[in-house]
């Protein structure tokens, strides 16, 4: 380990009855890298994401982030530490405008109790930050549209924007390309490449192997709740166990 690990997951376990959805999973994400977590259907990616983000507590093992032990902390505290996730199923404020969405996210991120008295509409700091995010995710022209009326790809972009509002040091992206057409995927890849260039650390869970191999610096492969391999895309491509795990999955085999 030449480089410092920003996120270190060690021996995590999560059992549902007799089933160990996460079974002694360990891997590390280095600061500044795009790290992809892949695995066949049912490998336990979603459960592992829940454990890392704090939506679900682990039965055993540890989660360290930036040297701090987060294993026993809830989601809100992990967000305050800089570990932020986006959702596989779009989770935005559908009835409010795009700008409202971002302002809400900025206000939610602030530590301490929100004011009961100041006018939120005059919250210049929050609006300035929200406008910045709007430009970053490329939805500037959609600011006043009701979020529920956006196209699917735009809603996914907003989803990333809401996660960015939480000022992450590491952004956990749960299938950001889910359900997207080729054009929308292309725009999302560009957005993620831009975030990578800004120096943000990304942990990417994704089924779209083209996107994974284009974006990832390193890849970890999860099979039956266990990380069977971590390495560069070339190392993962050549790894015999990874090939075995994906055997029969033609699409992925082709990408490998």
């Amino acid at each position: 380990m030449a480089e410092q690990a920003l996120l270190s997951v060690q021996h995590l376990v999560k059992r549902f009855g007799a089933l160990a959805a996460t079974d002694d999973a360990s891997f590390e994400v280095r600061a500044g890298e795009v790290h992809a977590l892949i695995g066949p259907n049912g490998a336990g990616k979603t459960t592992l994401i829940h454990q890392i983000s704090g939506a679900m507590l682990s039965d055993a093992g540890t989660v360290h982030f930036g040297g701090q032990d987060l294993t026993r902390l809830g989601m809100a505290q992990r967000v305050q530490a800089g570990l932020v996730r986006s959702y596989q199923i779009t989770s935005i404020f559908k009835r409010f405008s795009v700008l409202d969405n971002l302002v809400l996210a900025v206000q939610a991120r602030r530590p301490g109790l929100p004011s009961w008295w100041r006018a939120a509409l005059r919250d210049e700091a929050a609006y300035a930050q929200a406008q910045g995010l709007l430009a970053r995710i490329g939805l500037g022209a959609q600011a006043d549209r009701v979020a529920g009326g956006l196209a699917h790809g735009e809603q996914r972009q907003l989803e990333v924007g809401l996660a960015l509002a939480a000022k992450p040091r590491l952004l956990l992206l749960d299938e950001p390309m889910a359900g997207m057409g080729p054009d929308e995927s292309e725009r999302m890849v560009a957005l993620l490449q831009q975030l990578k260039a800004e120096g943000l650390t990304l942990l990417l869970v994704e089924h779209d192997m083209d996107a994974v191999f284009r974006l990832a610096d390193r890849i970890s492969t999860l099979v039956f709740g266990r990380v069977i391999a971590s390495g560069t895309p070339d190392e993962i491509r050549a790894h015999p166990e990874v090939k075995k795990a994906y055997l029969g999955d033609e699409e992925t085999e082709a990408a490998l």
Partner: protein
Amino acid sequence: MTTRTSLLHHRGQRRWIFWPLLALLAALPPLLTAIGLEFYVGVASRVLIFAIAASSLNLILGFGGLVSFGHAAFVGLGAYTVGILMDAGVASAFVAWPAAMLVSGLAAALIGAVSLRTRGVYFIMITLAFAQMFYYLMVSLKAYGGEDGLPLPARSALAGFDLKDDANFYWVALALFAAVMLGLQRLVNSPFGWLLQGAKENETRIGATGGRVFALQWQAFVLAGAIAGLAGALLANLNGLVTPHLMHWSQSGQLMVMVIIGGAGALWGGTLGAAVLLLLEELLSGYTLHWQMALGLVLLAVVLFAPRGLAGLWRRARHG
């Protein structure tokens, strides 16, 4: 610079409506007396008191999305606080009314701490269960009248301002109503109010961005309870009697009906609902004992044709 707008902002009424309306309401007692209808000053006070109670429920139900079916418990606890203090010789409104808010707020703090861990139907049932617990507690307390209730020998004392006079009492209720409404408008449009509305729309997202949903909802629940306690303190004074019936589940239901008819999540929803419901009751009960049937039809019509309540109709009429 263009004016900033937001779907989270509730503008309330324009100044040219609000202040003249307030002036008109303030002039109501002499106007009613002049035409020989001074009896209706008491009815007007009743409307204001229920407008306060319904608006406090609207904060958690309409803006917070928390369907509490036990809000009458906080009204009743406020009323009993005033009654019991007076029974013990404490008649000052400056002591008894804040005490009523405190007792109701504390009860809300406890009930909220438990029930806010549940959602949906479970939240409805658990708030209902807590309210019924308080109802049966007061029924069983024979020292304070049990089922018959506790009569108040006099109205609270307000430093030289004679509350025995119905017009004076009405003005005090009006002043408190105005203060509550201005305060709620401020609150709903603050970052706190926005996050509360955001949590109603998407609780998970507020949490995933670092917001503390439980703390937000709990604080709103406690505040709503305290305001309902103030309404209860006023109601005890208006009725001259405090009974367990104030806490009965049907009273919680009536407050919910007010909020739904008026417009859940609209700033003036609780007020509109309280006014329409109580005035309709006053009007119809003069003609028939079965006035509640007509009320049922009104409720049905609102739910079918104006799902956002009367306040929603008003908005649609103005904005096309």
